[in-house]
């Protein structure tokens, strides 16, 4: 037993080669397990958890600050050293971060009020350490072109702190989680622009097409982020107000406006382009649904928010983990069929989850469960295909985060 433990924690185990490896693994596991638990609670197989804030807060928090946070940490701790040309973080420090994340999940799951303190401590220290690791290098870059990540993480720290303050004070903590959704949407736009610029232009170059190169244009991005921020703050300050409805429509339009960058002809049908495109489609539809529902008096905020988190956030995490995970572990882009399958399942889960809010739905009860089940299946598929990549040795025998230059597997 102790032999196994020492093997897992030994810094030369492939799992610790690079920060994305443990974090992506745990993110996918959390995505699957937390949803399975939620499915159990929905169907009455599991008792509702006795956590501070109630079961819905637990569900929302674990998906946003458990699942998404792990994926975010893995991505940033891998991408920022690459952007700035610095070595990846020391493996011991990485192990501490992962331990903090795990402890936070455990503490929150057991949270009566007492353990909520513990969860707050673990989660907020993790987020602060994450900011501490990436802020310096990004700030020292001559043109500070990636500094938006730091601002977004600071906003995330603010909302997460606010969440725990509200939770511990016994107030309604959901508005803070809604605010966090806005921050995550902005983060998706920031991160995706960096990833897609390279990925799509590589594909266009490989195809030898003569269309104009893909450019993620900063003013459009800034408008979309501004509109999302305006909606999130508006909804936070004036919950349920029509003002937020208009702002949601503005956000939807600004995101649809982003898609102008993506209309690059036939290359759009490639999976590496289509999945990111669908992320923005889900995001725009989500905000549009929130806005239209609010203004027409047929409140659809929950359905819209699930379009944002199941559709946009779920797809974004899937594609980022699939791309960054296989490139930085030396395997090259993964062209196998499981990725479109998992992405398709996530889209299906999104549609079902949104339809489950339909007033006269036969699928209302079954829709929730079916959507959760499909989401669960999608992450199982990811895990089944990624465990070997994330926890196994590199094909080139190195022990680093280097990208492959050998082409595709």
């Amino acid at each position: 037993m102790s032999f196994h433990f020492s093997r897992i924690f030994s810094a030369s185990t492939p799992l610790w080669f690079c920060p994305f490896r443990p974090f992506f693994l745990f993110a996918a596991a959390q995505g699957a397990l937390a949803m399975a638990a939620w499915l159990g609670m929905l169907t009455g197989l599991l008792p509702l958890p006795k956590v501070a804030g109630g079961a819905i807060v637990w569900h929302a928090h674990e998906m946003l600050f458990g699942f998404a946070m792990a994926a975010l940490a893995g991505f940033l701790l891998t991408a920022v050293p690459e952007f700035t040309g610095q070595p990846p973080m020391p493996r011991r420090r990485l192990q501490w971060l992962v331990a903090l994340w795990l402890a936070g999940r455990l503490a929150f799951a057991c949270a009566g009020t007492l353990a909520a303190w513990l969860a707050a401590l673990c989660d907020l220290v993790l987020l602060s350490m994450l900011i501490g690791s990436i802020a310096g290098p990004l700030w020292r870059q001559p043109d500070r072109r990636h500094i938006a990540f730091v601002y977004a993480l600071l906003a995330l720290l603010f909302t997460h702190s606010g969440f725990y303050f509200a939770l511990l004070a016994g107030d309604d903590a959901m508005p803070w989680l809604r605010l966090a959704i806005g921050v995550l949407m902005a983060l998706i736009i920031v991160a995706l622009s960096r990833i897609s610029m390279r990925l799509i232009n590589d594909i266009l170059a490989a195809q030898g097409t003569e269309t104009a190169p893909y450019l993620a244009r900063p003013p459009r991005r800034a408008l979309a982020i501004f509109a999302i921020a305006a909606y999130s703050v508006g909804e936070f300050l004036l919950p349920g107000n029509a003002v937020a409805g208009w702002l949601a429509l503005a956000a939807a339009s600004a995101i649809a406006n982003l898609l102008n960058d993506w209309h690059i002809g036939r290359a759009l049908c490639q999976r590496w382009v289509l999945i990111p495109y669908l992320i923005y489609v889900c995001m725009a539809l989500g905000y549009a649904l929130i806005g239209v529902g609010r203004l027409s008096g047929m409140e659809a905020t929950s359905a819209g928010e699930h379009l944002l988190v199941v559709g946009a956030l779920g797809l974004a995490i899937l594609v980022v983990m699939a791309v960054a995970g296989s490139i930085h572990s030396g395997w090259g882009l993964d062209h196998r069929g499981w990725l479109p399958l998992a992405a398709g399942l996530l889209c299906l889960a999104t549609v079902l989850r949104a339809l489950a809010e339909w007033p006269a739905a036969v699928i209302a009860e079954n829709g929730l469960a079916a959507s959760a089940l499909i989401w669960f299946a999608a992450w199982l598929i990811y895990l089944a295909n990624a465990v070997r990549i994330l926890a196994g040795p590199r094909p080139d025998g190195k022990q680093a985060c280097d990208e492959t230059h050998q082409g595709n597997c």
Partner: protein
Amino acid sequence: MAWLTATGRYLWCGWGSLASLFLFLALWEYAAQHFGPLILPTPGEAFGTLAELFSSGAAWPEILVTARRALLGYGLALSLGSLLGLLVGLSVTASVLARPIVTLLVGTPPVAWLILALLWFGAGDGTPVFTVFIACFPIVFVGAMQGTRTLDGQLQAVAQMFGLPWWMKLADVYFPHVVSYLFPGWITALGTAWKVVVMAELLATSDGVGAALAVTRSHLDTAASMAWIVALVGSLLAIEYLLLEPIKRKIESWRTFA
């Protein structure tokens, strides 16, 4: 097919404008909630009233009357202004002569013309039509004049040298250049026509959108006033972005190659 793609692209670019319009509506909504319905109705109330006006059939006759007047005045200004402007632009002397007069016409406020028109034409169609005409004319005239004044002499010489037939010179050398000056003038004039006709109706006639606005004002019906204003501005935006701007892009496509 390429044209279809370009149109689709152009329409999709509209999302950016929509985003800023929605932000504006959010501000309006906030202000309306703050000040109350008597000062400022919410966008929802204004749109609702507008929809009612349309579904009850009360809106169409007024809009048709107003559109007829605006288009008549605008059409007169367009044809006369363009023709005279193009002709005057051919002669330097005429241009020098025309400039102070145009300045005078532009400088006179439309309300002053309206008063004169009331004296001359009375309270009928003539007053708004004339006011629209006189407000739009100098704008179109200046554009047309600039168009012929700035024709490229070298291009003319080249066309001459190659012995282009007159209709080819007209269609491929003169027309594209002149239109690039005329068109902005036409668009500005259209906006002016739409604004001026309502003002003229408000003060001078008993029918049309302007008169309807006067009635809503006297009834302190802010929601209906806003509804009419929304209809006016909305139709202007639609004409400009869905009709004129695409035509302009089509006609000015040579500029990207020039």
